[in-house]
């Protein structure tokens, strides 16, 4: 167990270091964007209500608000203060888009929707892509396989926001079959124990999920097929045939089992990217997930919320790779942990 312990400790330290590095980069990057969100907001208020406020009062108000948001003082001061708040007290500070609601609360509100929609879509597209890719890799000379692989090559290059628009047009406008915006039917009481609510959640997820799955399946299918094609040429496969094993057994235990190992790493990575990759799809369907939240935060330059979202995404990606590193030795006997 000793190598495992030291491995976990080294990796955990690396994990923290990466999060800190990414946090620092993101912090300075977003503060490089020119503009003062608070003054802009106050000006907007003045225009909205057609009132002029005394310049001194306005300045005092802006200073007060900046202090509450934690964006007063020099940039290094802000950085150290924010760093301390985030890493020691797990506090992102108030949000600006909906002041003074804490930024973390916003994130925790939206996070489950994104995890549900994109996590499920990613897993579904991996399973579908792996199984179909394995089959068309094994029987690669018939017409259906040739068609599927070429079709996938095309589909995989289409961005998911385009398939989202296409699905929207097809099922929301042409054939009016599915709801086009939101995550659930607002007329139903929001209760996780209510089957009608859960059903509407599933129904509202179909179209955005479809947009993600189509592209995801194509990618997994292509890589699985090429893995399987390589494995079919390996000596141990010829030997398996010479042993007179049943074809289904060879496919399951020899071909797919070996193709699965690299693909599981791929699955973990794409699960990590769930929070990053599909903001546009969420925005197109007005889905109340992290994508829509990130868009509003960027619009108002809500530093606390932006950094919170970035930090969350980075943590999920790193956690996914960390977990898969620990799991791989259990799945693949050839991999052993060492210092």
């Amino acid at each position, binding site marked *: 167990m000793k190598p495992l312990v030291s491995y976990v400790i080294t990796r955990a330290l690396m994990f923290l270091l990466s999060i800190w590095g990414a946090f620092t980069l993101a912090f300075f990057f977003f503060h490089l964007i020119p503009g003062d969100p608070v003054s802009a907001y106050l000006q907007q208020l003045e225009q909205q209500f057609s009132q002029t406020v005394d310049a001194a009062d306005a300045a005092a108000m802006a200073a007060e608000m900046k202090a509450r948001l934690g964006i007063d003082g020099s940039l290094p001061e802000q950085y150290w203060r924010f760093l301390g708040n985030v890493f020691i007290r797990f506090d992102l500070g108030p949000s600006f888009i909906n002041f003074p609601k804490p930024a973390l609360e916003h994130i925790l509100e939206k996070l489950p929707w994104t995890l549900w929609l994109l996590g499920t879509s990613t897993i579904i597209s991996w399973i579908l892509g792996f199984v179909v890719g394995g089959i068309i890799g094994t029987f690669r000379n018939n017409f259906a396989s040739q068609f599927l692989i070429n079709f996938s090559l095309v589909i995989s290059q289409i961005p998911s926001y385009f398939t989202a628009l296409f699905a929207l047009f097809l099922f929301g406008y042409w054939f009016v079959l599915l709801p086009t915006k939101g995550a659930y039917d607002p007329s139903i009481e929001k209760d996780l124990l209510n089957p009608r609510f859960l059903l509407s959640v599933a129904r509202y997820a179909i179209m955005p999920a479809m947009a993600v799955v189509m592209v995801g399946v194509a990618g997994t299918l292509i890589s699985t097929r090429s893995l399987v094609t390589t494995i079919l040429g*390996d000596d141990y496969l010829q*030997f398996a045939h*010479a*042993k*007179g094993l049943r074809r289904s057994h060879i496919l399951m235990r020899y071909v797919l*089992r070996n193709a699965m190992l690299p693909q599981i790493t791929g699955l973990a990575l794409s699960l990590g990217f769930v929070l990053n990759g599909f903001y546009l799809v969420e925005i197109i369907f007005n889905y109340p997930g992290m994508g829509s939240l990130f868009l509003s935060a960027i619009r108002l330059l809500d530093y606390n919320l932006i950094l919170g979202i970035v930090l969350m995404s980075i943590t999920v990606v790193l956690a996914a790779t960390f977990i898969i590193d620990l799991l791989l030795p259990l799945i693949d006997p050839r991999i052993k942990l060492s210092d």
Partner: protein
Amino acid sequence: MTDARPLLTIEDMRIHYDSVRGAYKVVDGVDVEVHRNEIFGLAGESGCGKSTLVEGILRLIEPPGHIHSGTALFRPFPEDPERSLDLVQLDYHEMREIRWKHLSYIPQGSMNSLNPVMRIRDQMTDVVMHHEPGGQNEINRNIAAALEMVGLPESLGALYPHELSGGMKQRVCIAMSMLLQPALVVADEPTTALDVNVQRAVLETIAHLRDQMGAAVIFVSHDLAVHAELVDRMAIMYAGVVMELGTVYEIFDNPQHPYTKRLIHSIPALGGPRERLESIPGMAPSPLAWPEGCRFHPRCPDAVPACSSATPRTIELDTGRKVTCHLFDPDIDLEQGSA
């Protein structure tokens, strides 16, 4: 040998690989017989078609290769020696039944012939389960016995292939080939890429298999020294055909065919004076266009005009040995090439 019917009769076997430049006639009309309980050697330079011939018998030829014509009558049933199966004509399912139970295989690339993600015992178990399903205890006993026979401990069954050395993997393959006590074992270059100590152990194991289990072995190797040590009868192949066939003593003590003579003289004599070895001039011809007449004539020092114009017949000499050369054909005009 009271049993007159040979275990395997290969007649006029032709195996071609299609290409845009035409058919590569890698095996081009081979006739050999393998008797029960004998070790039959196939020797020749690389590219002469010996491995392709045995892959053809095992039905492991993959497109673009195919068995163009020929028969391979296999009589594996001791209780009914007359009953024969033509290995070339069997369909996939019939062939699957024959494989391993009656006809097993020790592969050329045994380094990579084991499934990297299955334990040795599981790989041995699945072959038994697919042919003679039985109780786990009995299977484990058989596996332990087979491993012991090749000098490996039973505990090795719990390991994965990457935890074994090359020689151990080779011996695992041999143990596996004997699990179901087949009538015929095809060993394709089983000693290539092993160092001499391990080679010796492997050869002893194969001889032991024949003595103990009564299996016949087709032993393919380019290494004449190994043949001299192990086999009973052997065929010398050149350019997709058999040049000479006889017992190992006949071939080595009294080679008849000019090619066999050259081949045997190219082996250094142990303990003799160090002198320049004789080599055979020229290069092996291409299977796309074998030379007219006798395929060896461009490199043959004894060639006569007939050799370049007429294809030599196979002449049976006194003791049943066969030579494919005009020089032994009493009916041919050596200057003209017409019979």
